[in-house]
Protein backbone atom coordinates (compact mmCIF):
# COMPACT_ATOMS: atom_id res chain seq x y z
CA UNK A 1 0.00 0.00 0.00
CA UNK A 2 2.72 2.41 1.04
CA UNK A 3 4.66 1.60 -2.16
CA UNK A 4 1.64 2.52 -4.27
CA UNK A 5 1.27 5.75 -2.33
CA UNK A 6 4.94 6.64 -2.75
CA UNK A 7 4.84 5.86 -6.48
CA UNK A 8 1.67 7.94 -6.98
CA UNK A 9 3.13 10.80 -5.00
CA UNK A 10 6.36 10.62 -7.02
CA UNK A 11 4.50 10.72 -10.33
CA UNK A 12 2.38 13.62 -9.11
CA UNK A 13 5.50 15.43 -7.93
CA UNK A 14 7.24 14.86 -11.25
CA UNK A 15 4.21 16.09 -13.17
CA UNK A 16 4.07 19.22 -11.02
CA UNK A 17 7.79 19.86 -11.54
CA UNK A 18 7.39 19.46 -15.32
CA UNK A 19 4.41 21.83 -15.32
CA UNK A 20 6.41 24.41 -13.35
CA UNK A 21 9.37 24.04 -15.71
CA UNK A 22 7.09 24.48 -18.72
CA UNK A 23 5.48 27.55 -17.17
CA UNK A 24 8.90 29.05 -16.41
CA UNK A 25 10.13 28.34 -19.93
CA UNK A 26 7.04 29.94 -21.45
CA UNK A 27 7.02 32.95 -19.12
CA UNK A 28 7.74 36.19 -20.94
CA UNK A 29 11.09 37.71 -19.97
CA UNK A 30 10.77 40.51 -17.44
CA UNK A 31 11.95 43.59 -19.34
CA UNK A 32 12.19 45.77 -16.29
CA UNK A 33 14.34 43.27 -14.38
CA UNK A 34 16.53 42.74 -17.44
CA UNK A 35 16.92 46.49 -17.88
CA UNK A 36 17.86 46.92 -14.23
CA UNK A 37 20.43 44.11 -14.43
CA UNK A 38 21.98 45.02 -17.77
CA UNK A 39 21.39 48.70 -18.46
CA UNK A 40 20.50 50.77 -15.41
CA UNK A 41 24.00 50.93 -13.95
CA UNK A 42 25.01 53.16 -16.87
CA UNK A 43 21.73 54.60 -18.16
CA UNK A 44 19.98 55.10 -14.81
CA UNK A 45 17.00 53.31 -13.33
CA UNK A 46 14.59 55.68 -15.11
CA UNK A 47 16.66 56.01 -18.28
CA UNK A 48 17.73 59.54 -17.43
CA UNK A 49 21.36 58.74 -18.24
CA UNK A 50 24.56 58.72 -16.23
CA UNK A 51 27.73 57.08 -17.39
CA UNK A 52 25.59 56.18 -20.42
CA UNK A 53 23.42 58.50 -22.50
CA UNK A 54 19.83 59.25 -21.46
CA UNK A 55 17.34 56.89 -23.07
CA UNK A 56 14.13 58.41 -21.81
CA UNK A 57 14.16 61.54 -23.99
CA UNK A 58 10.78 61.48 -25.81
CA UNK A 59 12.34 62.98 -28.92
CA UNK A 60 14.75 60.03 -29.01
CA UNK A 61 12.33 57.23 -28.19
CA UNK A 62 9.68 58.56 -30.56
CA UNK A 63 12.07 58.74 -33.50
CA UNK A 64 13.76 55.34 -33.40
CA UNK A 65 12.15 52.04 -34.43
CA UNK A 66 12.36 48.95 -32.22
CA UNK A 67 14.88 47.41 -34.61
CA UNK A 68 17.34 50.23 -33.87
CA UNK A 69 17.14 49.64 -30.12
CA UNK A 70 17.29 45.86 -30.50
CA UNK A 71 20.39 45.93 -32.71
CA UNK A 72 22.05 48.52 -30.48
CA UNK A 73 21.60 46.25 -27.47
CA UNK A 74 22.76 43.18 -29.38
CA UNK A 75 25.85 44.65 -31.06
CA UNK A 76 26.68 47.67 -28.89
CA UNK A 77 29.01 50.35 -30.16
CA UNK A 78 32.51 48.96 -30.69
CA UNK A 79 35.05 51.23 -29.02
CA UNK A 80 32.41 53.63 -27.66
CA UNK A 81 31.68 52.14 -24.21
CA UNK A 82 28.26 50.60 -25.00
CA UNK A 83 29.01 46.83 -24.86
CA UNK A 84 27.44 44.11 -27.00
CA UNK A 85 25.08 41.66 -25.33
CA UNK A 86 25.70 38.37 -27.10
CA UNK A 87 24.20 36.19 -24.39
CA UNK A 88 20.76 37.82 -24.21
CA UNK A 89 18.08 36.00 -26.19
CA UNK A 90 16.04 37.83 -28.82
CA UNK A 91 13.02 37.60 -26.50
CA UNK A 92 15.00 39.18 -23.66
CA UNK A 93 16.18 42.03 -25.88
CA UNK A 94 12.62 42.64 -27.07
CA UNK A 95 11.50 42.72 -23.44
CA UNK A 96 14.13 45.35 -22.62
CA UNK A 97 12.99 47.43 -25.60
CA UNK A 98 9.41 47.10 -24.42
CA UNK A 99 10.51 48.41 -21.03
CA UNK A 100 12.35 51.31 -22.69
CA UNK A 101 9.12 52.21 -24.47
CA UNK A 102 7.46 52.66 -21.07
CA UNK A 103 9.64 55.75 -20.56
CA UNK A 104 7.62 57.59 -23.20
CA UNK A 105 4.07 57.30 -24.48
CA UNK A 106 4.73 58.41 -28.03
CA UNK A 107 4.02 56.50 -31.24
CA UNK A 108 6.69 53.95 -32.17
CA UNK A 109 8.00 54.51 -35.70
CA UNK A 110 7.95 51.52 -38.00
CA UNK A 111 11.19 50.07 -39.32
CA UNK A 112 11.52 51.15 -42.93
CA UNK A 113 14.32 49.35 -44.72
CA UNK A 114 14.07 51.28 -48.02
CA UNK A 115 17.41 52.79 -48.96
CA UNK A 116 17.73 56.51 -49.50
CA UNK A 117 19.46 57.24 -52.78
CA UNK A 118 21.16 60.58 -53.07
CA UNK A 119 24.22 62.23 -54.54
CA UNK A 120 27.19 61.15 -52.40
CA UNK A 121 29.51 63.94 -53.60
CA UNK A 122 26.94 66.59 -52.85
CA UNK A 123 26.17 64.84 -49.56
CA UNK A 124 29.82 65.03 -48.56
CA UNK A 125 29.85 68.78 -49.14
CA UNK A 126 26.59 69.31 -47.28
CA UNK A 127 27.78 67.09 -44.42
CA UNK A 128 30.97 69.17 -44.08
CA UNK A 129 28.87 72.36 -43.95
CA UNK A 130 26.13 71.17 -41.61
CA UNK A 131 27.18 68.13 -39.60
CA UNK A 132 30.94 67.86 -39.21
CA UNK A 133 31.28 70.53 -36.53
CA UNK A 134 29.44 68.21 -34.11
CA UNK A 135 29.82 64.71 -35.58
CA UNK A 136 33.40 65.10 -36.84
CA UNK A 137 34.80 65.25 -40.36
CA UNK A 138 34.45 61.49 -40.79
CA UNK A 139 31.53 60.84 -38.47
CA UNK A 140 33.77 60.02 -35.52
CA UNK A 141 31.48 61.86 -33.11
CA UNK A 142 32.01 64.60 -30.57
CA UNK A 143 35.09 64.62 -28.39
CA UNK A 144 34.76 62.28 -25.45
CA UNK A 145 32.83 59.08 -25.36
CA UNK A 146 29.68 60.50 -23.84
CA UNK A 147 30.26 59.08 -20.39
CA UNK A 148 29.33 61.45 -17.61
CA UNK A 149 32.65 62.94 -16.70
CA UNK A 150 33.56 63.68 -20.30
CA UNK A 151 30.21 65.33 -21.04
CA UNK A 152 29.30 68.83 -19.92
CA UNK A 153 26.62 68.36 -17.27
CA UNK A 154 24.21 70.67 -19.07
CA UNK A 155 24.32 68.55 -22.23
CA UNK A 156 22.24 65.38 -22.38
CA UNK A 157 24.42 63.80 -25.05
CA UNK A 158 27.65 64.18 -26.95
CA UNK A 159 27.23 64.01 -30.73
CA UNK A 160 27.32 60.28 -31.45
CA UNK A 161 29.88 58.57 -33.67
CA UNK A 162 27.79 57.99 -36.77
CA UNK A 163 30.63 56.14 -38.47
CA UNK A 164 30.52 53.47 -35.78
CA UNK A 165 29.73 50.04 -37.28
CA UNK A 166 27.23 49.38 -34.48
CA UNK A 167 25.34 52.57 -35.30
CA UNK A 168 25.38 51.96 -39.04
CA UNK A 169 24.04 48.47 -38.58
CA UNK A 170 21.28 49.56 -36.23
CA UNK A 171 20.14 52.75 -37.99
CA UNK A 172 18.15 52.51 -41.20
CA UNK A 173 18.41 55.20 -43.85
CA UNK A 174 14.87 56.29 -43.08
CA UNK A 175 15.72 56.72 -39.39
CA UNK A 176 18.77 58.86 -40.18
CA UNK A 177 16.70 60.88 -42.64
CA UNK A 178 13.91 61.42 -40.12
CA UNK A 179 16.43 62.54 -37.50
CA UNK A 180 17.92 65.06 -39.91
CA UNK A 181 14.50 66.33 -40.92
CA UNK A 182 12.96 66.57 -37.45
CA UNK A 183 15.95 66.97 -35.16
CA UNK A 184 15.88 65.76 -31.56
CA UNK A 185 14.21 68.12 -29.14
CA UNK A 186 16.16 68.45 -25.89
CA UNK A 187 19.51 67.78 -27.61
CA UNK A 188 21.76 69.96 -29.79
CA UNK A 189 20.49 68.06 -32.89
CA UNK A 190 18.30 70.52 -34.77
CA UNK A 191 15.82 70.08 -37.62
CA UNK A 192 17.68 70.69 -40.85
CA UNK A 193 14.44 71.19 -42.72
CA UNK A 194 13.67 74.12 -40.45
CA UNK A 195 17.28 75.24 -40.86
CA UNK A 196 16.70 75.62 -44.59
CA UNK A 197 17.81 72.36 -46.21
CA UNK A 198 15.57 70.67 -48.76
CA UNK A 199 14.57 67.01 -48.58
CA UNK A 200 16.87 66.30 -51.56
CA UNK A 201 19.80 67.79 -49.58
CA UNK A 202 19.00 65.52 -46.66
CA UNK A 203 18.86 62.47 -48.95
CA UNK A 204 22.35 63.37 -50.18
CA UNK A 205 23.66 63.63 -46.60
CA UNK A 206 22.10 60.26 -45.67
CA UNK A 207 23.81 58.68 -48.68
CA UNK A 208 27.14 60.13 -47.59
CA UNK A 209 26.67 58.97 -43.99
CA UNK A 210 25.88 55.47 -45.24
CA UNK A 211 29.22 55.50 -47.09
CA UNK A 212 30.98 55.46 -43.68
CA UNK A 213 30.33 51.71 -43.77
CA UNK A 214 33.33 51.47 -46.09
CA UNK A 215 35.69 52.84 -43.40
CA UNK A 216 37.77 50.02 -41.94
CA UNK A 217 37.59 49.60 -38.15
CA UNK A 218 40.54 50.96 -36.19
CA UNK A 219 43.47 48.56 -36.26
CA UNK A 220 44.68 49.98 -32.95
CA UNK A 221 41.99 48.38 -30.81
CA UNK A 222 43.51 46.36 -28.06
CA UNK A 223 42.68 42.68 -28.27
CA UNK A 224 42.50 41.18 -24.81
CA UNK A 225 43.60 37.73 -25.92
CA UNK A 226 46.93 39.13 -27.11
CA UNK A 227 47.81 40.62 -23.73
CA UNK A 228 48.99 39.13 -20.45
CA UNK A 229 47.12 40.51 -17.41
CA UNK A 230 50.41 41.24 -15.63
CA UNK A 231 53.86 42.66 -16.32
CA UNK A 232 56.59 40.76 -14.44
CA UNK A 233 60.35 41.46 -14.53
CA UNK A 234 63.25 39.90 -12.59
CA UNK A 235 65.35 42.38 -10.64
CA UNK A 236 69.14 42.22 -10.42
CA UNK A 237 69.10 43.93 -7.00
CA UNK A 238 67.83 43.05 -3.53
CA UNK A 239 64.31 44.01 -2.43
CA UNK A 240 65.25 47.21 -0.61
CA UNK A 241 67.38 48.52 -3.47
CA UNK A 242 64.72 47.57 -6.01
CA UNK A 243 62.06 49.50 -4.09
CA UNK A 244 64.29 52.58 -4.15
CA UNK A 245 64.89 52.03 -7.86
CA UNK A 246 61.14 51.88 -8.51
CA UNK A 247 60.60 55.12 -6.59
CA UNK A 248 63.34 56.90 -8.52
CA UNK A 249 62.12 55.56 -11.86
CA UNK A 250 58.54 56.67 -11.14
CA UNK A 251 59.74 60.16 -10.18
CA UNK A 252 61.75 60.30 -13.40
CA UNK A 253 58.49 59.70 -15.29
CA UNK A 254 56.94 62.75 -13.53
CA UNK A 255 54.97 60.78 -10.96
CA UNK A 256 54.65 61.66 -7.30
CA UNK A 257 55.24 58.84 -4.79
CA UNK A 258 52.08 58.80 -2.69
CA UNK A 259 52.70 55.76 -0.52
CA UNK A 260 55.14 52.90 0.05
CA UNK A 261 53.78 50.05 2.16
CA UNK A 262 54.07 46.38 2.96
CA UNK A 263 51.54 44.48 0.87
CA UNK A 264 49.72 43.18 3.95
CA UNK A 265 49.39 46.57 5.60
CA UNK A 266 45.82 46.94 6.86
CA UNK A 267 44.97 43.31 6.17
CA UNK A 268 46.73 41.76 9.15
CA UNK A 269 47.51 42.87 12.68
CA UNK A 270 50.09 45.66 12.74
CA UNK A 271 53.57 44.28 13.23
CA UNK A 272 52.77 40.89 11.68
CA UNK A 273 52.97 41.99 8.05
CA UNK A 274 55.26 40.06 5.72
CA UNK A 275 58.13 42.29 4.61
CA UNK A 276 58.76 40.32 1.42
CA UNK A 277 56.26 42.22 -0.70
CA UNK A 278 56.34 46.01 -0.93
CA UNK A 279 53.90 48.17 -2.88
CA UNK A 280 54.97 51.53 -4.32
CA UNK A 281 51.97 53.76 -5.13
CA UNK A 282 52.52 56.78 -7.36
CA UNK A 283 50.38 59.31 -9.15
CA UNK A 284 50.40 62.13 -11.67
CA UNK A 285 47.24 64.06 -10.85
CA UNK A 286 47.03 65.82 -14.20
CA UNK A 287 47.06 62.49 -16.02
CA UNK A 288 44.60 61.10 -13.50
CA UNK A 289 42.21 64.00 -14.08
CA UNK A 290 42.44 63.55 -17.84
CA UNK A 291 41.87 59.81 -17.76
CA UNK A 292 38.87 60.11 -15.44
CA UNK A 293 37.36 62.46 -18.00
CA UNK A 294 37.71 59.75 -20.62
CA UNK A 295 36.18 57.03 -18.46
CA UNK A 296 35.21 57.39 -14.79
CA UNK A 297 35.19 53.61 -14.32
CA UNK A 298 38.94 53.55 -14.70
CA UNK A 299 39.52 53.50 -10.93
CA UNK A 300 40.31 49.81 -11.23
CA UNK A 301 43.73 50.94 -12.51
CA UNK A 302 44.23 53.24 -9.55
CA UNK A 303 46.37 54.29 -7.87
CA UNK A 304 49.31 53.55 -10.15
CA UNK A 305 51.24 50.82 -8.43
CA UNK A 306 54.27 48.59 -8.76
CA UNK A 307 54.83 45.68 -6.38
CA UNK A 308 58.27 44.34 -5.49
CA UNK A 309 58.23 40.70 -4.41
CA UNK A 310 61.00 38.58 -2.91
CA UNK A 311 60.86 34.78 -3.11
CA UNK A 312 63.78 32.56 -2.08
CA UNK A 313 66.31 35.33 -2.61
CA UNK A 314 64.95 36.27 -6.03
CA UNK A 315 63.31 39.66 -6.49
CA UNK A 316 60.59 40.34 -9.04
CA UNK A 317 58.85 43.57 -9.97
CA UNK A 318 55.29 43.34 -11.15
CA UNK A 319 52.28 45.44 -12.10
CA UNK A 320 48.95 45.23 -13.83
CA UNK A 321 49.05 45.44 -17.63
CA UNK A 322 47.08 48.59 -18.60
CA UNK A 323 46.58 47.26 -22.12
CA UNK A 324 44.91 44.13 -20.77
CA UNK A 325 42.61 46.09 -18.47
CA UNK A 326 41.75 48.61 -21.16
CA UNK A 327 40.18 45.93 -23.30
CA UNK A 328 37.47 45.49 -20.66
CA UNK A 329 36.14 49.00 -21.18
CA UNK A 330 35.24 49.03 -24.91
CA UNK A 331 36.54 52.58 -25.06
CA UNK A 332 38.89 53.53 -27.91
CA UNK A 333 39.91 56.77 -26.23
CA UNK A 334 40.92 54.90 -23.12
CA UNK A 335 43.00 52.54 -25.24
CA UNK A 336 45.24 55.48 -26.18
CA UNK A 337 45.84 56.33 -22.51
CA UNK A 338 46.52 52.70 -21.75
CA UNK A 339 49.10 52.47 -24.49
CA UNK A 340 50.83 55.45 -22.84
CA UNK A 341 50.53 53.90 -19.39
CA UNK A 342 51.85 50.59 -20.69
CA UNK A 343 54.95 52.40 -21.96
CA UNK A 344 55.33 54.23 -18.63
CA UNK A 345 54.97 51.05 -16.56
CA UNK A 346 57.48 49.16 -18.69
CA UNK A 347 59.91 52.10 -18.56
CA UNK A 348 59.66 52.28 -14.76
CA UNK A 349 60.01 48.54 -14.25
CA UNK A 350 62.83 48.14 -16.76
CA UNK A 351 64.71 51.04 -15.18
CA UNK A 352 64.17 49.61 -11.70
CA UNK A 353 65.33 46.11 -12.59
CA UNK A 354 68.50 46.91 -14.51
Amino acid at each position, binding site marked *: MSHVFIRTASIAGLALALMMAALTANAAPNGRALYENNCSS*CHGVNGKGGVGVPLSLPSFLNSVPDSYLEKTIRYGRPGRVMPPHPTLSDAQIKAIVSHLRSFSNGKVPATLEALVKGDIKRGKKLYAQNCSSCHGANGEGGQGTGVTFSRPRDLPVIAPAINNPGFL*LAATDSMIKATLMNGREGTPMKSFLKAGLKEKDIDDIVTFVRSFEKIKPSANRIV*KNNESPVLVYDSQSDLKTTVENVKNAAKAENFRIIRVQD*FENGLVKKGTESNREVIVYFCNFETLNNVLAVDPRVGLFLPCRVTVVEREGKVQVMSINPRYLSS*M*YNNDELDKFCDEMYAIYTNIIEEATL
Partner: protein
Amino acid sequence: MKNLLAIILLVMVANPGVASESEGLIIHRSTQTFPEAMLALQTSIGEHGYTVSRVQRVDIGLTKSGYKTDKYRIVFFGKSSEIRAVKQSQPQLIPYLPLKIVIFSENNETLMVASNMTQFAVLTQQKDTRVLLERWNNDIHSIFTDVK
Protein backbone atom coordinates in the same frame (compact mmCIF):
# COMPACT_ATOMS: atom_id res chain seq x y z
CA MET B 1 26.85 46.00 -46.97
CA LYS B 2 24.53 45.78 -43.95
CA ASN B 3 24.75 41.99 -44.05
CA LEU B 4 28.53 42.22 -44.12
CA LEU B 5 28.47 44.58 -41.13
CA ALA B 6 26.20 42.19 -39.25
CA ILE B 7 28.54 39.28 -39.96
CA ILE B 8 31.59 41.25 -38.81
CA LEU B 9 29.82 42.33 -35.61
CA LEU B 10 28.49 38.82 -35.02
CA VAL B 11 32.02 37.45 -35.28
CA MET B 12 33.20 40.14 -32.88
CA VAL B 13 30.56 39.40 -30.24
CA ALA B 14 30.87 35.65 -30.71
CA ASN B 15 34.65 35.76 -30.16
CA PRO B 16 35.09 34.79 -26.51
CA GLY B 17 37.92 37.27 -26.05
CA VAL B 18 35.85 40.17 -27.26
CA ALA B 19 32.62 39.02 -25.67
CA SER B 20 34.29 38.78 -22.30
CA GLU B 21 35.19 42.46 -22.55
CA SER B 22 31.72 43.39 -21.37
CA GLU B 23 31.96 40.74 -18.69
CA GLY B 24 35.32 41.93 -17.36
CA LEU B 25 33.68 44.73 -15.43
CA ILE B 26 30.98 44.44 -12.82
CA ILE B 27 29.08 47.71 -12.58
CA HIS B 28 26.24 48.43 -10.21
CA ARG B 29 24.21 51.51 -9.49
CA SER B 30 22.91 52.29 -6.05
CA THR B 31 20.06 54.75 -5.66
CA GLN B 32 21.59 55.76 -2.33
CA THR B 33 23.65 58.91 -1.98
CA PHE B 34 27.40 58.49 -1.82
CA PRO B 35 27.77 58.62 2.00
CA GLU B 36 24.94 56.11 2.46
CA ALA B 37 26.28 53.78 -0.23
CA MET B 38 29.83 54.03 1.13
CA LEU B 39 28.63 53.07 4.59
CA ALA B 40 26.53 50.21 3.22
CA LEU B 41 29.47 49.00 1.11
CA GLN B 42 31.91 48.83 4.00
CA THR B 43 29.28 47.21 6.21
CA SER B 44 28.52 44.55 3.62
CA ILE B 45 32.21 43.87 3.00
CA GLY B 46 32.58 43.22 6.74
CA GLU B 47 29.47 41.07 6.84
CA HIS B 48 30.93 38.92 4.08
CA GLY B 49 33.93 38.23 6.32
CA TYR B 50 36.41 40.56 4.62
CA THR B 51 38.62 43.24 6.15
CA VAL B 52 38.78 46.69 4.59
CA SER B 53 42.51 47.32 4.43
CA ARG B 54 42.41 50.85 3.07
CA VAL B 55 40.23 53.46 1.40
CA GLN B 56 41.98 55.52 -1.25
CA ARG B 57 40.39 58.97 -1.41
CA VAL B 58 41.04 59.80 -5.05
CA ASP B 59 38.80 62.87 -4.91
CA ILE B 60 40.80 64.38 -2.06
CA GLY B 61 44.07 64.00 -3.96
CA LEU B 62 42.55 65.56 -7.06
CA THR B 63 41.00 68.45 -5.14
CA LYS B 64 44.28 69.20 -3.35
CA SER B 65 45.94 69.35 -6.75
CA GLY B 66 43.38 71.89 -7.96
CA TYR B 67 41.02 69.67 -9.95
CA LYS B 68 37.24 69.52 -9.54
CA THR B 69 35.72 66.12 -8.97
CA ASP B 70 32.79 64.29 -7.48
CA LYS B 71 33.31 61.92 -4.56
CA TYR B 72 35.56 59.13 -5.81
CA ARG B 73 37.04 56.42 -3.58
CA ILE B 74 38.64 53.01 -3.93
CA VAL B 75 37.99 50.43 -1.22
CA PHE B 76 40.63 47.71 -0.81
CA PHE B 77 39.67 44.55 1.05
CA GLY B 78 40.41 40.87 1.54
CA LYS B 79 40.65 37.98 3.93
CA SER B 80 44.21 37.78 5.21
CA SER B 81 44.37 33.97 5.16
CA GLU B 82 43.13 33.78 1.55
CA ILE B 83 45.31 36.61 0.31
CA ARG B 84 48.38 35.14 2.03
CA ALA B 85 47.74 31.73 0.50
CA VAL B 86 47.24 33.09 -3.01
CA LYS B 87 50.23 35.41 -3.02
CA GLN B 88 52.39 32.56 -1.78
CA SER B 89 51.26 29.99 -4.31
CA GLN B 90 50.28 32.29 -7.20
CA PRO B 91 52.44 35.44 -6.95
CA GLN B 92 51.46 36.46 -10.48
CA LEU B 93 48.06 37.42 -9.05
CA ILE B 94 49.62 39.91 -6.61
CA PRO B 95 49.08 43.00 -8.84
CA TYR B 96 45.31 42.38 -8.63
CA LEU B 97 45.26 41.94 -4.85
CA PRO B 98 43.85 42.85 -2.42
CA LEU B 99 40.38 43.01 -3.96
CA LYS B 100 39.09 46.47 -4.79
CA ILE B 101 35.82 48.23 -5.45
CA VAL B 102 35.69 51.67 -7.03
CA ILE B 103 32.84 53.81 -5.73
CA PHE B 104 31.90 57.25 -7.00
CA SER B 105 28.94 59.58 -6.88
CA GLU B 106 26.82 60.45 -9.86
CA ASN B 107 24.51 63.27 -8.83
CA ASN B 108 22.33 61.80 -6.05
CA GLU B 109 23.18 58.20 -6.87
CA THR B 110 26.30 56.10 -6.57
CA LEU B 111 28.12 53.83 -8.97
CA MET B 112 30.36 50.94 -8.00
CA VAL B 113 32.78 49.11 -10.28
CA ALA B 114 34.85 45.99 -9.74
CA SER B 115 36.80 43.56 -11.88
CA ASN B 116 35.31 40.21 -12.66
CA MET B 117 37.92 38.19 -10.77
CA THR B 118 37.25 35.02 -12.75
CA GLN B 119 38.99 36.55 -15.78
CA PHE B 120 42.29 36.18 -13.90
CA ALA B 121 41.89 32.41 -13.83
CA VAL B 122 44.11 32.47 -16.94
CA LEU B 123 46.98 33.22 -14.57
CA THR B 124 46.67 29.99 -12.62
CA GLN B 125 46.38 26.27 -13.24
CA GLN B 126 45.40 25.58 -9.62
CA LYS B 127 41.82 24.41 -9.26
CA ASP B 128 41.61 25.75 -5.70
CA THR B 129 42.61 29.21 -6.82
CA ARG B 130 40.12 29.15 -9.66
CA VAL B 131 37.38 28.18 -7.22
CA LEU B 132 38.48 31.02 -4.94
CA LEU B 133 38.35 33.54 -7.79
CA GLU B 134 34.81 32.34 -8.54
CA ARG B 135 33.79 32.81 -4.91
CA TRP B 136 35.34 36.27 -4.74
CA ASN B 137 33.34 37.16 -7.81
CA ASN B 138 30.11 35.86 -6.29
CA ASP B 139 30.83 37.78 -3.08
CA ILE B 140 31.35 41.02 -5.01
CA HIS B 141 27.98 40.52 -6.70
CA SER B 142 26.41 39.80 -3.32
CA ILE B 143 28.01 42.91 -1.79
CA PHE B 144 26.71 45.04 -4.66
CA THR B 145 23.24 43.61 -4.19
CA ASP B 146 23.38 44.60 -0.53
CA VAL B 147 24.30 48.17 -1.41
CA LYS B 148 21.83 48.48 -4.26
